C-alpha cells in the first residue's frame, strides 16, 4: 500500500520534472534568440531594442526558479561525506530531517513570496508595459511550491530501497 502511494508520487514528480525541463530549455532558447536579435539591432542596424534586456531577465528568472525543480533529483550540489559514514538507520533519519527542513524553507518562501507577488502587481516592467512586475516575482513562490512533492519523495526515498529509483536524468 505505502509503496504504491510512493510509486505514484514518484511518477507524478517525474512528469513535473519533465515539464519543467522542457520549460527551462525553451526559456534558454528564448534568451539566445532575443540576445542575438538584440546584438544584430545594436551593431548592424544601430538601433538598439529597448525591451530586450528586460525580456531576457524575465526569462532568466523563470528559467532559474523552474530549474530548482529539475535539480531536486541529485542535481543540486551537496556535501555528502557525513551521511555516508553514519550507520544506515541514522543516515535515513538524518536524510528525512534534512528534507523536512527543506520543505520548511519551501513553505516559508511560498508564504512570504505571494505577498511580494501581490505588491508587484501594482507595478509594471519598465520597458514592457503590458507585463506586471508581479508576474516576474511569481517565479519564486511557484518554483518553491513545485519542490514540495519532490521534498516528500526525497525524504521517503531511503525507506523504499527495493523500488526502481529515479535518477537525475
Amino acid at each position: 500500500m505505502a509503496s504504491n502511494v510512493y510509486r505514484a508520487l514518484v511518477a507524478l514528480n517525474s512528469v513535473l520534472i519533465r515539464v519543467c525541463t522542457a520549460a527551462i530549455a525553451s526559456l534558454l532558447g528564448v534568451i539566445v534568440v532575443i540576445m542575438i536579435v538584440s546584438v544584430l539591432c545594436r551593431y548592424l542596424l544601430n538601433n538598439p531594442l529597448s525591451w530586450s534586456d528586460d525580456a531576457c531577465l524575465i526569462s532568466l528568472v523563470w528559467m532559474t526558479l523552474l530549474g530548482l525543480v529539475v535539480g531536486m533529483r541529485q542535481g543540486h550540489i551537496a556535501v555528502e561525506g557525513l551521511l555516508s559514514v553514519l550507520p544506515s538507520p541514522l543516515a535515513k533519519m538524518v536524510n528525512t530531517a534534512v528534507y523536512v527542513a527543506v520543505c520548511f524553507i519551501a513553505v516559508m518562501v511560498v508564504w512570504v513570496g505571494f505577498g511580494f507577488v501581490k505588491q508587484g502587481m501594482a507595478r509594471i516592467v519598465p520597458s514592457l508595459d503590458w507585463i506586471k512586475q508581479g508576474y516576474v516575482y511569481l517565479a519564486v513562490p511557484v518554483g518553491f511550491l513545485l519542490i514540495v512533492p519532490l521534498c516528500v519523495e526525497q525524504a521517503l526515498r531511503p525507506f523504499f530501497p527495493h523500488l526502481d529509483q529515479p535518477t537525475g536524468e
Partner: protein
Amino acid sequence: MIMPLFVSLTIVAALLGMPIVFALAFGPLAGFVIDGKQVMAQIGLQRFFAGINQFPLLAIPLFILAGEIMNAGEITRRLVTFSKLLVGHLRGGLAHVNILSSILFAGLSGSAVADTTALGSMLIPAMEKDGYTRKFATAVTAASSIIGPIIPPSIIMIVYAYIMNVSVGALFAAGLVPGLLMGASLMAMTAIIARKRNFPKREGLPSRKEAVTGIVQGFFPLMTPVIILGGILLGIVSPTEAAVLAVAYSLVLSLVSGTLSPGAIPGLFVRAAKSSSIVLLMIGSASLFGWALNIAGIPQSLARLVLDITENPILFLLLINLVLFVVGMFLDAGPAILIVGPVLGPTMLGMDISPIHFAVIMCLNLTIGLATPPFGLVLFASAAVSKLRVGEIVRAMLPFYLVHILVILAITLIPDISLALPRLLGYPV
C-alpha cells in the same frame, strides 16, 4: 568573535547533506523565525530574487551553452589534432598534447569538469596505447584540466566579478597569464618525468599534408577565444554579448562542418539550462546569506580580528591560501567563492590588496581544490572516465600537486603576473 545562530544552522545543515542552495537560505530563515523577526525573512527573500535578477548573470547560461555546443561538435578532437602538430614530437608527446589541449580548451569553455571528461575520454585510451600507464595518463588529464576556469572565459570569474563588484573584463584579462603559466609549469614537470621514466618519443615530424589539415581544421574553433577575448578586452562588446556571439558562432561552425546534427541541439539546451540554473540559484541563496552575514557584522569583525593578528598583506595572503585550500577540498569552486568572497572582502580592502589579484588567487586555489581529495569534482570525473580508484589517481598526481602549489605561491607573491595585462589594457587594478 561569536558565531551567530544562523551561521551554525547553515553549517550543520550543509554537513548533514542538505544541498548548499537550501542550506544557505535555511540558516537565516530559521534564525529569523526563532528570533521572531518574520519581517526580515521578507527582505531576505527580496535579496534572493535580486541576486538572480541581474543582467550580467545572463553571460553564465550563454557561456555554458557555448561550451556544450563545442563539446558536442567534435571541437575537442580538432584541438587535440592541432596540439599534436605542435608538441606531439617531444619526449612524452601525448602528455604534452594533453596539457596543451587543456590550455586551448580553456579558451572555449570555462569548466574544469568538462575538460576532464572531454579530453580524458579521448586521450587516456590513446596514451595507454602509446605505452603510458593509465594512472599517469589520468593524472595529467586531471592536473591540467584546472587550467579551464583560469583562462577566460570562466564561469567562476563571472560569479566572482558579480558578487565582489569588479569588472568581468579585468578579471578575464588577469586570468590569462596565470593560466598560461600553470600550463607551462605542468609541461615542465611532464618533461622532467618523461626524461626520468624514459617516455616514448615519436620519430619524425608530421607530414606536410597532416600539418595543413590539422591547421585548417583547428583554425575556426581556435577563433572562438579570439572573438570572445578580443571583443571583451578591447571593449567592443559586453561579456554577455560576447557570450551570445560565442553561442551563435559555435552553433554555425558545428552545423556547417556537419559535426553536430540538428537533432542533438535540444539536448544541449536542456543540459545548459539545468547546470546554469543550479549555479544561479546558488548565487541567489548566497546573496541572501551574504546579506544576513553583513547585518550581523561578521565580515567587519573578521577583518578587525585579522588586522589585529597581522597587517602584513603577504602573510595574510599566504594564510588565506591555506584556508582556501582547505575550503576547496570540501566545496565546489562556485559555492566557495559565493560564501567566502563576501566574508573576506572587507579584510582584503583593509590591507590594500587589489581585488583583481585576490580574485585570481581565489579562483586558482579553489579550482585546484576540484582536483584534491576528499571531495573534488575533477577527481570524481577522472575516476569515472578512467575506471581507476580516486586514491590511485591522487598518488599519481603528487608531482603535479607540487606544481600547483608552486604556481599558487608565485601568483600570490608576484601580483604583476596577474595585474600586468589588465593594467596594460587600461583597467583600474
